[in-house]
Every structure is written in structure tokens, then in C-alpha cells.
């Protein structure tokens, strides 16, 4: 991505976010007569943020068009997207099938995603996934007395 596009885009997002916060802040009931109510501070923060958004936007527009940022590459994007999906699946899995099985599955697939092709050892990954999940589960549930999710069927 070009540095200019990157900065202009982020400045615009900051501006939009400020506008949204200001809008919601202005809807807050005015309960304190002298005006220092719950909407006061968010309005100030949103106004300040919009100024910063504008500054970043202008900085972006003044940036040399030829400047490029370091890219991630196709394989990198794929690994990041897969890791994010795995995190979401782990979160959902914890609630549905319980912590232990979800952690084993998550660890196994995350090892696969994060390791270079030549270092992929399926058997070893499965072993480490089971061993480390069990160790974490036992340490937290027995050692620290935490109640971890057991899923719908737990």
C-alpha cells in the first residue's frame, strides 16, 4: 500500500469515529444544570479527535505519492486471516464444546498455520497440543481454582 493512501484512510477513519462519538454524546440527557454532565467529556474528546483526524488527513494528502509501505505478501495475509479465524473459532468453541477440546484443536491448527512448511510435524503438533492444553487446564482449574467453560454438553 502507498503511504499516502494509508495515512489518508486512517485520518478519515479517525474523523468518522469522532463524528459518531460526538453524535452519540450529544444525545446524552442533560442532567446537571451547569452542563458538566456525562456528555461533556465525550464531546470534548470527540472534538479534539476530529482535529487530530483532520491533521492526519492533511499529513496524508501532503505525503509523496511514490512512497510505499512494506507489504505483507499473499502468504502473510493468508496466515494472518487463518489465525484470526482460528481465534474466533476457539472463542466460539470454548462456549460450545468446552475449553479443553477447543484448546487442543486450536493449538494443533495454530501450530500448522504459524510454522514454516518444512518444520511441520503433524504427530509432534498433536502431542504438544494435547499435553499443553491439558497442563494449562489442570493448572488453572485445579491449581488456581478457576472454572473454565465446559460447553453445552459439559
Amino acid at each position, binding site marked *: 500500500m502507498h503511504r499516502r493512501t*494509508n495515512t489518508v484512510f486512517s485520518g478519515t477513519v479517525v474523523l468518522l469515529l469522532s463524528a459518531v462519538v460526538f453524535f452519540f454524546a450529544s444525545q446524552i440527557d442533560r442532567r446537571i444544570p451547569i452542563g458538566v454532565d*456525562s456528555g461533556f467529556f465525550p464531546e470534548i474528546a470527540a472534538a479534539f479527535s476530529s482535529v487530530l483526524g483532520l491533521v492526519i488527513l492533511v499529513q496524508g494528502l501532503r505525503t509523496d505519492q511514490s512512497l510505499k509501505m512494506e507489504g505483507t505478501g499473499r502468504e502473510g*495475509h493468508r496466515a494472518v486471516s487463518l489465525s484470526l479465524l482460528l*481465534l474466533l473459532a476457539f472463542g466460539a468453541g*470454548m462456549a460450545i464444546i468446552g475449553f479443553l477440546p477447543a484448546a487442543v484443536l486450536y493449538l494443533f491448527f*495454530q501450530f500448522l498455520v504459524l510454522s514454516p512448511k518444512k*518444520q511441520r510435524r503433524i504427530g509432534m503438533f498433536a502431542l504438544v497440543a494435547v499435553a*499443553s492444553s491439558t497442563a494449562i487446564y489442570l493448572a488453572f482449574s485445579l491449581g*488456581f481454582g478457576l472454572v473454565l467453560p465446559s460447553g453445552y454438553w459439559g
Partner: protein
Amino acid sequence: MELWIAGTLNIFQFSPLLLIIIGVTIGVIFGAIPGMSATMAVALFLPITFGMEPVPSISLLVALFVGGISGGLVTAILINIPGTPSSISSTFDGYPMTQNGEAGRALGLGILYSFIGTLMGCLVLFFIAPPIAKFALKFGSYEYFAIALFALTLVAGLSGDNLAKGLASATLGLMVAMIGVAPIDGYKRFTLGINDLDAGFALVPVLLGLFAVSEMLKEAETSFLEKRNGIPKFEMPGFFGTNWAEIKGQWVNAVRSGAIGIGVGILPGIGAGTSNLLSYLAAKNSSKTPEKFGTGIPDGIIASETANNAGIGAAMIPLVTLGIPGDTVTAMLLGGFLIHGIQPGPLLFANNGALVYSIFVALLVASVVMLCLLYFGVRGFVAMLAIPKHYLLSVVMVMCFVGSFAVNNRMFDVYTLIAFGTLGYVMLKFEYPFPPVILGFILGPMLEQNLRSALMSSKWNIWPFFERPIAAMFLLLAVTYIAIVFCRAIKMRGQ
């Protein structure tokens, strides 16, 4: 004196001592592995402290802090990659010493002067914190607002090359902190009808998301590349690779570097990442042979490691005396205090003096443990570097999930973790710094409550902010700092 004895008795028991040893060990491992940090170590272990008594839990967190800052020197010296930003300048002379076959001597010096630096920071904490806390009892809303604003400004300005992005990050932190019940009148804001948001976001999942999840996603970008750690063999000769004559010859360098580390550490937002560079430059500029710096001389390592560790005790000063965290690690320590219902600030000394002195003693004990562990176990820590990152990061992720869930025993905090991890990764891609978000998130309620209280009591009159000397001084410092950074940016653009 009674408080000192009480603090010492609290720490010299089996469980706090064991936790200090465990904390320093884990902290050193986190500090030594590039990409992991003291911040991540403390964040990860915060939830574990829920079930503990305050003294053992704070001992563990303090030990993680000491270990995390000290561990960075191992990789900085051996493989030219600083484990943490606090050891950046240790690479300048540490790695050349390794290349010259003096890796063991460089490690020994780094370990010894990390210890000396920590002791210097502790001494300042012991002697300065109590009078500051006594003085801070006189502070009101005006002073607290001004100090919090100054802290936030410093953090925002020093967290990257772009002041506007730093301030935007801090403002984002403020906005996130506004979600939930507002201070003073208890109005529910920005909750979008989601009941889980009534109490706002919990600190732990926000921290873990921004620092740990985003780091894993960043690591995923290059996960397909084959990476090898070429760790050289080393021997540590004599007493920490040095002798009495050299220690005597380096005392000016050590004291100057310690003073820089302490000065920088007390100021919110700057931290060990900057102090090690400043002290290295100071050592070079005052040396009779500045041309030798960078070629592998002990002076550079001594300057860097004394300064970064001296900042540990110094960074605790604003936290324990004012309740204002100076950086992300102390922000997390603040979380640790709050978990146990302890509110840091001037009243802490009056209401919970034994606990404060327990922290002081824990810091001292942790620094001694760090010295022994690194001296005798440095080979073990180096061996840990051989564990592939795909194992380490994935297991850390599982612990982050457990840690986030444990905050309130609800899945909402797990989803918060994922959301803030994604936000952190996006911020990385758009070059927005994290520390201001965290500081904004923590200081937001303090800023809002004190500003509103002050304006309500003065009936919208802003003059009391300028009539009260402490408040006026910090507001002036904040404005001056912004002006300096702004002028410097314009000057650089002109060049």
C-alpha cells in the same frame, strides 16, 4: 521502621519468595524472547493473581517486571536482537563483544550492572516515594486532572515519530474508557443496549488483545519463512566478566547512567526504551575515546543496562504515590492492585503502609534473584530461545483466552480480547502506537472525574486551574511539551 519490618516479614515467607523466583524466571524468558516483553508477561499473569493474597500476587508481578526488563540483554548481546526495547543500546557494544569472542564477559557485565541499576532505582523509590505521597495528600481535582493530562501528553508524544497519531491513539483510549457507566452521575453511555458493556471493557482483555494477540498476528505474517537462531558458545570469566579495578573505573559511568534511568523512569511515558539510548549517548559524549563505542567496549553495555534497570524503581514512584502509571507495565501493575481492591495513591501509604513496604522489599529481593538466576542459569535461558515461536505464541494465546475469561468468568471478555487483538493489528498496519491507547484507557476515568468535579465546584470557572501552582505547572509543562514536539516536527519538515 516498623513498616520496613512488616514489609520484610511479609516477603520473607515461603509463598512470596517462591513466586518471586518463578516471576523473575518467567520474566527473563519473556524479556529474552524477541517479540515478547515484560508487559506481556505481567498481562498474562494478572488473572492468575486473582485467587492469591495481595502480597504474594504483587510480589509475582513485580518479579515479572524486574525479570522482563533484565532478560532483554541476553539476545541483545548474543544475537544482536534486543529482547525488549529497553536493551536496544546493549546491542551496540554487546554484539561486537560477542563477535570478538567476549560474549560471556559482555553477559556478565550486563547482568551485574542490571543489578546495580535496579538497586539504584530501588533506593530512589524508598527515599522519594514517601515524601511525594505525603505531599500529594494535598492534591485536589485540579492537580489530579493536570497531572493526568501531562502524563497522557508525554506518553502520546513519545510513542512514535508522529505526534498526531500518538495523540489520536490516546484519544481512542479515552473513548474506549467512556463506554459504560459514567463517573459522578452514573449515566450509561455508548453501550448500544449490550448489558455486558454496562461496566465498560475490562483492563486485562484489552491489554492482552493489544499486546499479545496483535503480536501473534504480526508474527503470522512471516511465519512461512525459515528462521534459525545462531546462538554462539560462550564462557563467563571471573567475577561477572570483570574485576574490582574495572568496577572502580566505571563508577562514574554507572552513576550517570543510573541517574538518567531514574530521571527518565519517573516521568510518565518515556520509560526504559528511551533511557538506555540516552545513557549510551551520554556515556559516549563524555568518554575520552568516543570512537571506540560500537566496537565492543564494556562502557556501552554498562550505560545501557544500568539505565534501563534503574527505571524500574523510578517508574513505580508515580504509580504508588499518585496512582498514575507511567508506562504499560506499571499500567498492568495498577490492574494488579485494583484486582485486590487496593487503590494506589497517596492514601495507600497511610492506609496500607505495610503493603507498600512489602513492594519495596519484593523489588529488592527480585533484583537479587535476578542476579543469581541470570548468573547461574544464563545457559538455560539461552536454550529456551531454541523453542520455535509457533509453539510459544500459540500456547501464549491459549493462556490469554484463559486469562481474559477468568476476569469475570464470562465469554464477553474473550470476545473483547479478540476484538482488541484485531484492533491492535490494524493499528500496527497504520502505524498508530499502542501505549497511548492503554494510558488513555486507564487515565480516562481519572481525567473525566477530576475535570468534571473541578468545573462543578468552580461553576465553570477555569481560573482555579491556573491559580493553583501544582496544577498550573503541570498544565504549562503539557502545553510546553506539545509546543516543543510541534516545533521540532515543523523544523524537521523544513529540512
